[in-house]
């Protein structure tokens, strides 16, 4: 492991910088030379059909999977050589895995605070602020499994931000929740981004894709489109993201 805590490229203000990032599994190329960057405070939508390579790309960017070729830095650290630093400087939340159902709200916050390397005083202070902000102070001793899904997701997001990471990855954070909770969640995303944290988010809701500053659409492991929602639509000459998706995922199907 290279010197922990030393950023490989301190000159770049970019939150994510990926150059030719590639991952093969045997003869199958899951991610095929993708190059992109994410700015500080940007909400970056990472989209594509099931199997397009999104999950593999995110696993590389979060330091869980080594790239076969190419390089990426996240929060200034190399994904290939400083995976440990990356994990301490990013937040991650997915629909399936985030909090421990059998621990209380408070225990989850303390557990993650410890994992992120915060000391007890910092954990206590941030726990209080977090619970107040979410209106969960009276529920801190409740088991997470007893919370409504919408609360759980807001808590999971806040816990993923506990160590004030520069980048947070949200993998389908709003699946299955009601439309009001879904929108409250997006307001949390805006607040996070406005405070300077970059947000990389995946979603199957195309209206949520419109909430992003920029979109990155993957098809078969490659970049099929990148830009603001208006740019990617204009580039393809379509009026809606729905049309764009059909065109990208099923070339020739329009005929």
């Amino acid at each position: 492991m290279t010197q922990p805590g030393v950023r490989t490229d301190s000159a770049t203000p970019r939150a994510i910088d990926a150059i030719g990032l590639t991952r093969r599994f045997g003869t199958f190329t899951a991610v095929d030379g993708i190059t992109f960057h994410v700015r500080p405070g940007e909400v970056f939508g990472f989209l594509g059909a099931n199997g397009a390579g999104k999950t593999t790309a995110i696993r590389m960017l979060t330091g869980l999977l080594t790239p076969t070729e190419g390089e990426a830095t996240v929060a200034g650290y190399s994904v290939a050589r400083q995976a440990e630093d990356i994990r301490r400087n990013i937040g991650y939340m997915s629909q399936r895995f985030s909090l421990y159902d059998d621990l209380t709200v408070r225990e989850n916050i303390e557990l993650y605070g410890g994992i992120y390397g915060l000391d007890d005083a910092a954990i206590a202070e941030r726990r209080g602020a977090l619970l107040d902000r979410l209106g969960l102070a009276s529920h801190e001793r409740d088991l997470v499994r007893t919370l409504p899904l919408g609360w759980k997701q807001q808590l999971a997001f806040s816990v993923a931000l506990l160590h004030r990471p520069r980048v947070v990855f949200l993998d389908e954070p709003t699946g299955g929740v009601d439309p009001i909770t879904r929108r409250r969640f997006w307001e949390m995303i805006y607040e996070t981004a406005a405070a300077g944290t970059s947000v990389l988010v995946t979603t199957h809701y195309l209206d949520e894709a419109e909430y992003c500053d920029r979109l990155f659409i993957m098809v078969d492991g490659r970049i099929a489109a990148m830009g603001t929602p208006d740019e990617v639509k204009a580039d393809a000459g379509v009026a809606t993201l729905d049309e764009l998706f059909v065109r990208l995922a099923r070339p020739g199907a329009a005929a």
Partner: protein
Amino acid sequence: MKTAVVARGLTKRFGDVVALDHVSFEVGSGELFGVIGPDGAGKTTLFRLLVTLYLPDEGESRVLDLDPAKDIWKLRPRVGYMPGRFSLYPDLTALENLTFYASVFGTTVDAGMATIEPIWRQLAPFASRRAAALSGGMKQKLALCCALVHAPDILFLDEPTTGVDAVSRREFWDLLARLRERGLTILVSTPYMDEASRCDRVALVQRGQILRIDRPFAVSAAFPRPLLAVTGTGRVGVTAERRLALIKALREHPHAVSVWPFGRSLHVTDDRAGADPAALATELTMWLKARDLEADVTPTAATIEDAFMWDMADAERIA
């Protein structure tokens, strides 16, 4: 129209949790009926009651003029049911899964082919692939074939499109439309509000209760207040801050009942029922301008999601 499903006061509890709370509705024969709502609304419980898998604590139902609580063995062969989690055996091939489901219902794949042909045609090239190795969209189509292979008279699909990408979702609905054209009664549940428009009628469900039942366009048309779409036109750059500023300012407007992100715009519901939406749009534009915020404001038609959110907030106001 003949009635395929009748539910009267259907109620199911699990301990202290009321999963389904006195739900009543009817589905006509040949209808494509959508049950739309988030996780925990009671969609799965409702379907399990109707396909004979649960007994209700209160209320009753009829499916194809049979009682799901009593006529289990008469009803089962006539019902196709695709549960929410994939019901496939991952270690069996696509064709083996299909053959298995056919045999469970005492029929054969050949006998069922007339029913499933349009769907199976897309799967046939992968017939000898293990179900585990099929893509999400293909698994979903195979599960549909398995639910249809015994040529049922009514089909229950529990969240068939959850977690499936937008393009596969659209293709799946195209398949359902073709099945509907052939006269099959279909009940389908989904958390995706944008799928409502593909149904003949929809029930909006939340917390075990039905908020509203109607044709999709009628749900939108019944929206009781003027609705305005606000699109920020400020300079390019990182937008989160600008969007938050716009949301905050709009929420301070004395007549704004609700302000929510909707695609590239924000939807603002004005509390002045019956007011001229064009005049309200002009008023809101000026109001934002006075706060140094540039935006296009136009009257807009409510979507199913606007209606759902209105009904949800209404239900909470009453409760």
